[in-house]
């Protein structure tokens, strides 16, 4: 496999994110695989943001520690990223624009601003000039660059398209003529019809496919992309997207909408989820199916608003007062996010429970090639009782006690009887009760009966090279990519990997069968408390021997993880 890591850095407001999107499209157009991450600060202007694209001849699932090519669009970027370059790597900068006079053998001086002014007649085309320079440095032909820019700027008119192409072309030519490092050359291939998806988009597309018709949220990084994607397709798919006044309103609107019969979802991050905890409890008590997304970021409190962490695991398992059954999915890839969003609605309605999807900034913002054929679709079944099944105008009981624990769920005004739902403890009819015996039966229904059914519908752990493994790495959520890539790079048959796309109810039986007593279990977690290790211990009795933890707000890169695995697995 040939691969390169390319980083573009600049202060907020310089358009680093746009360059990232264009670069990803260029590499995809050149038939290559990529994995990109965004590293941005919680500010609108200034600071230092960067995007890092790992581009390769084969699929890649995680980021690297060091970059082969680093493009610094401002002075602080040069100083900040110089130390994080790959051996033999190159730092691209416009020396005269940034005011650097000295020589440095690792620098490639590219007059990006002069190119933009000359070819595009404006400094604002510096981003396209940079894209052209990068494409030229890695010896990609100009054709895919042109195709991508035409499409990216089509809405802004022919003049803008032409100016961007001119700036990119001149940048491309400049690099072809002035930069010669064959080791950094990439081999283009025919473009595949893959999708470029980040986790937020994949999740939203899954929800749209599942027939989610109402979405309400309060904007909160890094979950906001879910709402933006839902809003973008709202008219197309007949969805109402409503920005709530706060997360409490968001979850209660979603519950109201679901009670009235539509599939509804909300998305937030940890702090917003904290505000939704009472609503979660209400959904459980009223047995109203809802889907909640927690795109995690580092806490406590406001924490690192734009960065990544997996520290809400215990919180989500325990959030909400009282005792009730819930489901928590933890997708590791865009494909899983797409599937589990659909599964979430299916399970929420089938068992009338709240279902949570736990992602994080890494999954939410990272982009990968996804093959459309690899996406799984779930046939929709509402698990509702019809007018006929619901009986006469006085016979329907919303909370009817049944042997399975699942009561008939009907849609208000679509049956002959009226429907009551109550957050107080209630009778089968949904009216307030103080009766101890009824209380006992209702608690059993909401907690143990549902939990036993949900345990039969667990999304199984994904086992990779576990047959002969002496060491088993275990992760959930976005660590999937880094662990997979690390295991592949280590090429050690004694090291295997278990990914958990569902953490609650915990897949105890399947996990124990895989891990048993045969192997040493090491968890890999983006948190400080080894929460997954604790969960495994509590749910299976298997005691993980060690945990590889990272809680600096940044994702695992495969190089760091490889070193840590070697240390831990000794």
């Amino acid at each position, binding site marked *: 496999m040939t691969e390169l890591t390319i980083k573009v850095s600049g202060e907020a407001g310089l358009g680093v994110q746009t360059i990232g999107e264009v670069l990803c499209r260029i590499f995809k157009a050149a038939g290559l695989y990529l994995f990109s991450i965004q590293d941005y600060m919680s500010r609108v202007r200034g600071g230092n943001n960067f995007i890092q694209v790992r581009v390769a001849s084969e699929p890649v699932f995680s980021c690297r520690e060091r970059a082969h090519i680093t493009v610094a669009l401002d002075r602080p970027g040069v100083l900040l990223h110089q130390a994080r370059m790959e051996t033999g790597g190159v730092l691209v900068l416009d020396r005269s624009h940034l005011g650097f006079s000295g020589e440095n053998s690792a620098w490639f001086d590219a007059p990006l601003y002069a190119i933009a002014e000359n070819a595009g007649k404006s400094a604002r085309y510096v981003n396209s000039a940079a894209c052209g320079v990068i494409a030229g440095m890695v010896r990609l032909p100009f054709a895919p660059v042109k195709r991508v820019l035409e499409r990216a700027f089509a809405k802004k008119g022919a003049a803008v398209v032409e100016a961007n192409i001119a700036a990119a072309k001149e940048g491309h030519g400049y690099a072809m003529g002035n930069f010669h490092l064959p080791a950094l050359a990439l081999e283009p291939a025919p473009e595949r019809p893959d999708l470029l998806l980040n986790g937020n988009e994949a999740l939203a597309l899954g929800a749209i496919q599942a027939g989610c018709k109402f979405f309400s949220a309060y904007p909160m990084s890094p979950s906001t992309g879910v709402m933006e994607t839902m809003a973008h397709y709202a008219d197309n798919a*007949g969805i109402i997207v409503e920005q709530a*006044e706060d997360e*409490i309103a968001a979850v209660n609107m979603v519950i*109201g909408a679901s009670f009235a*019969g539509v599939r509804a979802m909300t998305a937030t991050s940890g702090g917003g989820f904290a505000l939704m905890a009472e609503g979660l409890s*209400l959904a459980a008590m009223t047995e109203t199916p809802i889907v909640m997304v927690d795109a995690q970021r580092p806490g406590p409190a406001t924490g690192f608003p734009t960065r990544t962490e997996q520290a809400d695991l215990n919180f989500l398992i325990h959030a909400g007062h009282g005792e009730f059954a819930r489901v928590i999915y933890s997708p590791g890839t865009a494909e899983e996010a797409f599937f589990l969003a659909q599964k979430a609605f299916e399970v929420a309605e089938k068992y009338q429970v709240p279902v949570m999807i736990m992602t994080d900034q890494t999954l939410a913002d990272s982009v990968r090639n996804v093959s459309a054929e690899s996406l799984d679709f779930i046939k929709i079944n509402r698990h509702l009782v019809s007018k006929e099944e619901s009986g006469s105008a006085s016979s329907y009981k919303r909370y009817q006690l049944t042997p399975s624990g699942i009561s008939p769920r009907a849609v*208000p005004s679509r049956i002959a009887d*009226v429907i009551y739902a*109550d957050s107080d403890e209630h009778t089968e009819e949904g*009216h307030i009760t103080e009766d101890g015996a009824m209380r006992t039966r209702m608690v059993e229904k909401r907690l143990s009966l549902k939990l036993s059914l949900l345990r039969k519908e667990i999304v199984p752990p994904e086992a990779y090279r576990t047959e002969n493994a002496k060491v088993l790495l275990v992760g959930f959520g976005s660590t999937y990519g880094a662990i997979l890539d690390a295991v592949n790079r280590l090429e050690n048959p004694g090291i295997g990997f278990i990914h958990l796309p569902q953490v609650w109810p915990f897949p105890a039986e399947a996990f124990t069968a895989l891990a048993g007593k045969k192997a040493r279990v090491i968890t890999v977690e983006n948190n400080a408390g080894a929460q997954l290790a604790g969960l495994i211990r509590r749910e299976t009795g298997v005691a993980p021997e060690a945990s590889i933890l990272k809680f600096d707000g940044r994702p695992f890169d495969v190089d760091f993880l490889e070193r840590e695995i070697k240390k831990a697995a000794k």
Partner: protein
Amino acid sequence: MILDDFKSGDEVAWCPGCGNFGIQNAVKKALVKLGRRPQDILLVSGIGQAAKLPHYIRSNGFNGLHGRALPAAVGAKIANRELTVIVTTGDGDCYGEGGNHFLHNIRRNADITVIVHDNQIYGLTKGQASPTTDRGMETRVQTRGPLSEPLHPLEMAIALGCGFVARGYSADSDHLADLILQGITHKGFSFIDVLQPCVSFNKVNTYEWYAKRVYKLDPAHDPADKASAYQKAAEWGDHIPLGLIYKSERPSYEELSGVAALPPLVDADLNAVNVRTLFADFQ
């Protein structure tokens, strides 16, 4: 429809003589006149004595969380715009715990009717000050009376552009029923603050106290006149006006959001969705 169509079999847990009974009767009378089937009505409430009302009227009922009746009601209305959605809430539920939702749902203007049982006291927690408790009323918690200025919900609603602002009195259920029916037929967010004696915990604002003070707005009062509506909304103390104080028309949430143009969301064919048609955007 007759009153018995809306008769619930559930046992009522209010105190004898409670002002809530007058409101319950008024809602029933309004629903009879409205003429819709019980299953086409949805009563949504939060928590408190007022919030028990949905159980005591035969219609769909969603009795949710304290302070959160409004978002649940709006969610349900968006899901099925054909439902007649009525919120029954109290001064603590709506103005205290749920104050933020009150502000923003006036702005949102979904076509729902909000009846606030305003007894100026917390009943279910046994007698603490509510946001509308007058200064000087001592309680076991507010031992010197509330320190905060009472909230002025009617003036607030007018300032926020609420299109239907009314005040009723629970002891005059015919008049209140008429206001409720007007509120239901008004397109957009309709707000009715109902003066409601609490026989157990509010020893100041009693039936006798109100009887001496309330009066019906002169037919000459023009609810479209915002300045005069403010004046009437601010009137408190010796003379307390009842009736439709302010009315104006503006597009509802359903019209602005596209809900009105779609079939009720609840009837959407979910299997008609195919996101493969969107994949080109990501290719």
